[in-house]
């Protein structure tokens, strides 16, 4: 430009340059300029420049508009999209199989992931979680591991803190079974505990009222959970009020804490100050080593390696209690459990609440991945199988100048698109069935959607991984076609593709066979356990928890009143009282018991159950040597009964040898008057325990009542009336023994049903894939079928011919799956002391089932094809 134009002209030119088609621009600007030059002399510069502007604006029409530069990407994308949509709508059948299969697979995968995520992230809300460990205690007897406690002696935490600078702080907790009352109202407590004063400083449970460091300091202090505070006090402010523990001890409410999150291995409805506990027992209780009734948590210094640190324990234990241990031929071991792992790795005595199970969780994770993989394999198989019919499309695209990368792009896009639809569908499915699934997996994990971003990032990663996994191979295969061969019609699926497809189908069925065998075996094991002869009668028994009394003397007065009223109650057929009832371990675990003639080193640990003289009859237990308890003999409290297992532990071969032998039990001497036949006190999962029965007139624990079931409601009401007559307004808390007993299987039953559910899903998805594949392959062979029919093949021969290939694959997968499932099941069953043996049937029945499913799936299409009139299939030849 040889001279400077006015600003407006410059702007107008800018606009034109931007807007106009370049090849027109020069002449347009030239014309405008020419006119401007003319106008300048005619009308003046000022007007001329405005005219220039308006005239240039006149070019604001589409004719002059710069054609957008041809965008390769956009066009390609558009084309991919159209091609995908066309391909999907043209093949609705295969498309829906693909999408539906993927959606089910994804939905199953998401739900499992969600469940697993929930299980894996327990206690991760604690701020100092990396440094907090629970001290778990193992007790040994004669070099053998006898008891694993979640808890341990109070001294564990105390001594660790005192001896090692690595332990910055510790908290101990002690369970307290006693109930509370406020203004004559009694409240049932889930798990009341005494807690050391620094509880709220170590654990990240926020206080709504009160100060972290003060609420548990000093005597007779109690802190309530928000929901318990609401239950007791309603809208009143609980702080400063007094609640009554066990009818006679006043506790001052000093604070209220937010309820524990569901994903926590702890859940307390209230905490008493630990100092109170010490004041009520003795100062030694802080440091003692022999009573495993305390949960110990230690806070380690930043950067302490727990492995290395715990290797120092042995020496400390040796110093403190080495001699004593040697005397009893016993041993003690402390194990540090990381706080966040407690839920999964721990399932020991005296857990605060039921823990999860690591194996189950990872098992489920594997199943979830299986279902997803099966769905992806379906996609790969169907797409590559159908590549035959898309070969022409690829050929033409290549002839028209598509690069291979374009074709890969196209098929990856298809994969993305189908995955996206499936993903949305899966999200919908999950959304709809989520509450039911929650319900299904059980009460303990009433969880919500995960809130952590890493979960969602993981999910997205899986989604894209799925696209890559399922899309890459088909894209690779399809884009590899040679256009000339394809368009000339000389095209057949490559044999390598066939082999891969076959191995993928085999893998799918392998996974399905493993799952179905697993499900079958899990059910068989459950069935076996439940059908066991327990040796103990648990039916129609109602169990009432004994009330808490200030002292045994009160119990001794009130107990006979209740007992008498029950005997006069016509709806009751029998009653007994004991410290424990069948269905759980008898928690009284006593060590140091030996024959009076033995040394301390020969002593052993036994489970002890205190019971009255009705217990054996009531539960139908058989005394196979000696006699059962009978008050008429007098001085019965000096006598004990042993079970067979306990007799063996004592070192006798023949049960009769044990009769009338004296045993040493915590400083006292008892006489063995009888031997009880082994029965399943705990669930049949466990081996028999060595048990000692001690006679007690009024044991504190449970009343077992055999009631007339004809009119259940009335009977229960009547018993409650008896209860109130004897114990006033003490909490009347009862349950039915068979339920209680069955609770022990709950986790296995849950595991079984989840396992079964996802196995069914996996099989469904696999069959869906097989269905699609079979329909496609048989349709390809329709001409062959036609020719064979014309030549006289029978329907039967055709069915065998067409299904044969698939059945072969399924058979191979069964052969490979059998040893895998055998190995997995052996491992799983090893966790039971009492288990089924894996017979041929465990493998045969699932195998036959899956072959049947496969045959039916394939035969459906085969039959359709085989029935076609050859005239129709051959007419265009």
């Amino acid at each position, binding site marked *: 430009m*040889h001279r400077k134009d006015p600003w407006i002209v410059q702007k107008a030119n800018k606009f034109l340059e931007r807007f106009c088609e370049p090849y027109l621009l*020069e*002449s347009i600007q*030239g*014309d405008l300029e020419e*006119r401007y030059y003319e106008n300048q002399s005619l009308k003046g510069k000022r007007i001329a420049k405005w005219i220039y502007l308006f005239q240039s604006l006149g070019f604001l029409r589409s004719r002059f508009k710069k054609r957008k530069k041809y965008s390769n990407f956009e066009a390609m994308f558009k084309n991919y999209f159209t091609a995908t949509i066309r391909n999907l709508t043209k093949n609705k059948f295969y498309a829906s199989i693909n999408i539906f299969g993927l959606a089910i697979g994804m939905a199953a995968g998401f739900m499992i992931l969600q469940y697993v995520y929930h299980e894996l992230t327990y206690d991760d809300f604690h701020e100092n979680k990396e440094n907090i460990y629970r001290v778990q205690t193992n007790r040994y007897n004669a070099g053998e591991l006898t008891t694993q406690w979640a808890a341990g002696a109070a001294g564990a935490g105390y001594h660790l803190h005192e001896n090692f600078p690595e332990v910055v702080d510790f908290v101990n907790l002690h369970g307290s079974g006693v109930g509370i009352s406020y203004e004559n109202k009694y409240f049932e407590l889930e798990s009341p505990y005494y807690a050391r004063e620094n509880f709220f400083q170590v654990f990240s449970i926020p206080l709504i009222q009160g100060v972290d460091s003060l609420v548990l300091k000093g005597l007779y202090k109690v802190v309530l959970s928000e929901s318990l505070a609401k239950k007791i006090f309603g809208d009143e402010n609980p702080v400063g009020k007094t609640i009554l523990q066990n009818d006679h001890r006043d506790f001052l409410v000093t604070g209220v804490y937010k309820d524990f999150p569901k994903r926590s291995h702890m859940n307390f409805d209230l905490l008493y100050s630990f100092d109170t506990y010490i004041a009520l027992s003795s100062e030694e209780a802080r440091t003692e080593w022999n009573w495993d009734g305390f949960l110990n948590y230690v806070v380690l210094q930043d950067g302490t390696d727990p492995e290395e640190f715990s290797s120092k324990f042995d020496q400390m234990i040796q110093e403190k209690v080495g001699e004593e241990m040697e005397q009893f031929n016993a041993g003690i071991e402390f194990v540090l459990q990381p706080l966040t792992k407690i839920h999964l790795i721990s399932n020991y005595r005296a857990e605060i609440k039921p823990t999860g199970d690591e194996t189950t969780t990872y098992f489920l994770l594997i199943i979830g991945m299986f279902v997803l993989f099966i769905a992806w394999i379906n996609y790969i198989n169907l797409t590559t199988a159908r590549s035959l019919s898309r070969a022409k499309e690829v050929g033409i695209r290549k002839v028209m100048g598509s690069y291979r990368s374009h074709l890969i792009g196209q098929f990856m896009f298809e994969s993305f698109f189908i995955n996206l639809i499936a993903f949305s569908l899966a999200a919908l499915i999950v959304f709809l069935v989520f509450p039911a699934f929650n319900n299904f997996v059980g009460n303990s994990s009433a969880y919500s959607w995960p809130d952590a971003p890493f979960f969602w990032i993981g999910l997205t990663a899986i989604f894209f991984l799925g696209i890559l996994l399922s899309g890459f191979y088909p894209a690779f295969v399809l884009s590899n076609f040679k256009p000339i061969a394809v368009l000339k019609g000389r095209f057949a699926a490559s044999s390598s593709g066939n082999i891969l497809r076959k191995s993928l189908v085999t893998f799918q069925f392998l996974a399905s066979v493993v799952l179905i065998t697993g499900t079958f075996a899990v059910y068989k094991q459950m069935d076996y356990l439940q059908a066991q002869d327990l040796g103990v009668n648990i039916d129609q028994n109602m169990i009432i928890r004994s009330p808490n009394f200030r002292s045994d003397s009160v119990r001794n007065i009130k107990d006979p009143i209740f007992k008498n009223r029950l005997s006069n109650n016509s709806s009751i057929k029998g009653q007994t009282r004991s410290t424990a009832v069948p269905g759980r371990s008898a928690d009284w675990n006593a060590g140091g018991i030996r024959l009076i003639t033995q040394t301390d080193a020969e002593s052993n640990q036994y489970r002890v159950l205190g019971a009255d003289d009705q217990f054996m009859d009531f539960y139908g237990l058989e005394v196979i040597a000696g006699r059962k308890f009978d008050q008429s003999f007098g001085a019965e409290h000096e006598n004990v009964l042993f079970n067979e297992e306990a007799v063996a532990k004592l070192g006798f071969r023949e049960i009769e040898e044990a009769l009338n032998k004296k045993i040493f039990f915590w400083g006292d001497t008892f006489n063995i008057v009888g031997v009880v036949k082994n029965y399943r006190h705990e669930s049949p999962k466990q081996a028999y325990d060595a048990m000692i029965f001690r006679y007690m007139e009024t044991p504190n624990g449970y009343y077992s009542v055999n009631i007339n079931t004809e009119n259940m409601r009335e009977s229960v009401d009547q018993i409650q009336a008896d209860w109130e007559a004897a114990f006033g307004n003490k909490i009347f808390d009862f349950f039915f023994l068979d339920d209680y007993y069955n609770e022990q299987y709950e986790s296995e039953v849950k595991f079984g049903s989840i396992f079964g559910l996802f196995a069914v899903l996996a099989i469904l998805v696999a069959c869906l894939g097989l269905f699609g594949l079979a329909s496609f392959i048989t349709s390809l062979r329709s001409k062959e079928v036609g020719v064979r029919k014309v030549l006289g093949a029978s329907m039967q021969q055709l069915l065998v011919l067409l299904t044969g290939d698939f059945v072969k694959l399924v058979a191979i997968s069964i052969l490979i799956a059998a040893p895998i499932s055998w190995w997995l099941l052996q491992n799983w069953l090893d966790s039971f002391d009492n288990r089924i043996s894996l017979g041929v049937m465990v493998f045969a029945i699932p195998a036959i089932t899956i072959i049947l499913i496969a045959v039916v799936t394939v035969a459906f299409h085969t039959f359709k094809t085989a029935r076609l009139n050859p005239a129709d299939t051959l007419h265009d030849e």
Partner: protein
Amino acid sequence: MKGTNLGELEELIMLSVGILYDEAYGIAIQNEIKERCNRSITISTVHSVLGRLEDKGFISARYGGATPERGGRRKRLFTLTSSGEATITKMRKMRNNMWDSIPKVALGNA
């Protein structure tokens, strides 16, 4: 594209292109129409119609010499193509034919 029909403005511009033979470009055509028909058409309309005619294949364009008044920019010069010629010739014949067919009485005192 609506075939080969010509609009009135298109016809005028084609005629101008013909008149201006070898000197037909935007401004010249605009001036021609202003003088002969006393009609002001904006320069953008001229270009627009020219483009349309080019699409129809009635005129063709080439770049001509640059002049200083145009800031050194070249003109886009238009000439009639043979099909353009044929079209306006046909148009003229058709009109003449129709004129010839009008009875004398119908035109009154013309």
